[in-house]
């Protein structure tokens, strides 16, 4: 009797999920993880023999497994129950902070070293051309370095300043802008999201001020900015990896009062009067309200000014020596930073090398760039293959 029950339970378990996944409709997209899920692969002789079919099929089963999100969260609770405070490379901290642990090996990888060198070479090349005071490099540390005090007891992750120090010392004097100090001084404030890998807009504003000070620019004072709470229900990318219960984050928008933006996305693919796209508040990926996520190139001018396309057509881009033109080369850390810079230059170009195919130096000549700001977070820089577009 007892034996039969065991057998029945086992068979129910394997046939239950077998049937469940056969009947369940495939989902194309995971809202939680913010990624497209694997489709059922098509069996071809070639795919079978070169192993892509079998690999894709296993990914497909994993992605489409019934109750996937529930299983993920169940597993991570099991880890917590075992006393673990670092799960899937994420520190589970007191007061609800989830902090990713990027390891020394990542920062000493070949890619990380090459990318750092590429930033140094490009920064110095542009500094020689435009003048050191017109070129800035900011490598933002992530929460693992700034919020060390919040980590579980004894946790001692890699200190990203080792990595950024090498970049700083390679660059011409005055090019590197050290923002670690200001973030550390304000670490008790809400400078990083608890559930997301980005800094908060407040963190970005601190960096913005440091940048302005070091370049002799006048930053917008808080009174000149309109500060608006866009969401108090933001669960970010780190939360998605664990799917455990935690308190949500608040997203704030800092935007410049008294300036009418004209933003041209991706060479005219769309034109808007705002760098904020609130439609993203409806979904999970709320950080994308800033500039609608990562864009290949965005041109920002004052609303009634001519756009570059007009100027290029007139053929007078390079002749206009009076104009100040900022080129920002960046990752997603800059997305909430950009709205604070509008109006400081006649034109601002924001490019993301992951979606930008043109040679950067050629672009700078063509568009009369006078100032450059490179803004990455240290983590992106360790494994982003597209930094090579600056030239290795």
């Amino acid at each position, binding site marked *: *009797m*007892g*034996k*039969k*029950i*065991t*057998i029945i*339970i*086992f*068979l129910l*378990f*394997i*046939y239950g*999920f*077998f049937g469940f*996944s056969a009947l369940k409709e495939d989902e194309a997209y995971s809202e939680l993880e913010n990624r497209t899920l694997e489709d059922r692969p098509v069996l071809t002789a070639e795919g*079978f*023999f070169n*192993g892509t079919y*079998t690999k894709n*099929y*296993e990914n497909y*089963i*994993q992605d489409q*497994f019934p109750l*996937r999100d529930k*299983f*993920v969260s*169940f*597993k*991570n609770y*099991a880890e917590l129950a*075992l*006393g*673990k*405070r*670092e799960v*899937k490379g994420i520190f589970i901290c007191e007061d609800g902070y989830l902090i990713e642990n990027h390891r020394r*090996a990542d920062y000493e990888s070949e890619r990380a070293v090459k990318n750092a060198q590429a930033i140094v070479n490009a920064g110095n090349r542009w500094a020689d051309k435009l003048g050191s005071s017109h070129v800035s490099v900011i490598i933002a540390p992530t929460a693992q370095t700034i919020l060390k005090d919040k980590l*579980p*007891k*004894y*946790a*001692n992750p890699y200190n990203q300043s080792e990595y950024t120090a090498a970049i700083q010392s390679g660059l011409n004097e005055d090019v590197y802008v050290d923002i670690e100090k200001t973030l550390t001084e304000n670490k008790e404030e809400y400078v990083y999201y608890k559930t997301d890998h980005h800094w908060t807009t407040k963190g970005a504003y601190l960096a913005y001020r440091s940048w302005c000070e070091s370049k002799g620019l006048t930053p917008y004072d808080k009174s000149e900015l309109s500060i608006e709470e866009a969401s108090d229900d933001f669960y970010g990318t780190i939360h998605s990896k664990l799917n455990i219960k935690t308190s949500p984050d608040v997203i704030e928008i800092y935007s410049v009062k008294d300036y009418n933006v004209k933003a041209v996305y991706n060479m005219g693919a769309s034109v808007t009067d705002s760098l904020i796209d609130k439609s993203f508040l409806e979904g999970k990926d709320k950080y994308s309200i800033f500039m609608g996520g990562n864009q290949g190139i965005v041109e920002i001018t004052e609303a009634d000014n001519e756009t570059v396309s007009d100027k290029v057509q007139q053929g007078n881009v390079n002749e206009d020596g009076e104009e100040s033109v900022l080129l920002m080369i960046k990752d997603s850390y800059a997305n909430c930073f950009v709205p604070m810079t509008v109006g400081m230059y006649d034109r601002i170009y924001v490019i993301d090398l992951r979606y930008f195919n043109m040679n950067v130096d050629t672009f700078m000549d063509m568009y009369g760039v006078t100032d450059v700001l490179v803004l990455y977070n240290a983590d992106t820089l360790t494994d982003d293959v597209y930094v090579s577009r600056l030239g290795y």
Partner: protein
Amino acid sequence: MIFSSLLFLFKFLPIVLLIYFVVPAKFRNFVLFASSLIFYSWGEPIYVLLMLFSTAVDFFHGKLVYKYKMSNQPGKAKAAVISSVVINLGLLGFFKYADFFLDSINNIFNLDIQLLNIALPIGISFYTFQTMSYSLDIYMNDEVPQNNPISFGTYVALFPQLIAGPIVRYKDIAQELRHRKENTDDFFIGIRYFIIGLGKKVLLANNIGLLWDEIKVLDSSSLTTVSAWLGITAFAFQIYFDFSGYSDMAIGLGKMFGFKFPINFDYPYISKSITEFWRRWHITLGTWFREYVYIPLGGNRCSRAKNIRNILIVWFLTGFWHGAAYNFIIWGMYFGVILIIEKTFLLNLMEKIPSVFRHIYSIILILIGWVIFEFESVSKMGDYILSMFGIKGAGFVNSEAMFMIREYGIIFIVLILASTPIPKLIVNKLGEKIRHMNIQWISYVAENAFNISVLFISTAYLVDASYNPFLYFRF
């Protein structure tokens, strides 16, 4: 394909079980054979031919050996069995060891011969040993050859034990290949084995493997004494629970289909000597070498010098079997030498000391063995061992090591308990009590609750699989 995957658990296994039990008994070997080929070719679509080739070679050699033996032509029978061994070892030599030999030749003679860069066919070390055992059993142990190529193919390709053992000798299951009776009792025991094995692999081995991966990459300037011991202990648990879990799943699946596979691990870490450890670790491999190498060489029924030679040959081969690299040879010889020392005098001496010291002695030697096993580079191996004893390394302990203890403390306690027979003894004791008190239902509920939990949690770990390595790709 591996057992600890969603694909196996929720697609392959349900389909194969269904077909297997629906078809009449006479087709069941064929069902197993066909599904085993699919199992193997999933991910190894070309190399499945190699396995079929090895199967065919021994099918015919077995017949030849038998024919010559029956017709009283021992010379020819011997020639046939040698031919089978040469072909199998030739396959193994080429696909597993060719680059190792070329590389060695390059190093010794300062040459630059192009390496072949052959990917190792999964399970080749297991199935070539199995097919060899067939011809050898017919030659040495009066086994009768299999007339049905499907049944023989089933023996070789049988997916439960195909890629990571246990190494089943032909004579172990010859009877069951011809005729077996699947039944509820065996199916029940099979499920038990399978679930325990799944839990060992997915919940224990994978979990502690993460710690070893973290420590393995530290260089000696950041490796403290504490983390060195933690790390190699973690690996010891990882390889044990991974390997024995895999064997348990194999044994369990075998049971479900009516086969009785030999056990492969018997609580090796409770051993009081290295001699005992090797009676408890990877038992089927030890048996294979004893039966087909050690005893034919004369075993211990010969002069002491010859006996020592035999032990060293067996341990050289055992080490080399684990991988085509020098560290595996060192690892094998290391144990060979310890075994000889134990055999000559140490075992007698040790019987006089309290068993706690014998445990400590064994564990330390086993752990040093695992360091040799894990580091291909002799200098890294040396650095690691020196760090374990505080001669090199970054001091006794640091915050990383403290963090690891904090993170893995509970898991270590679970692992230590699970590697002893204590949980089993407790369950048996309780079970007996419950039987006496006539409340059998409690043990049913407890057992099934345990099974369901292991199944659910393992599935959860597989769904969120960030880490599910296959450790035997070098074997």
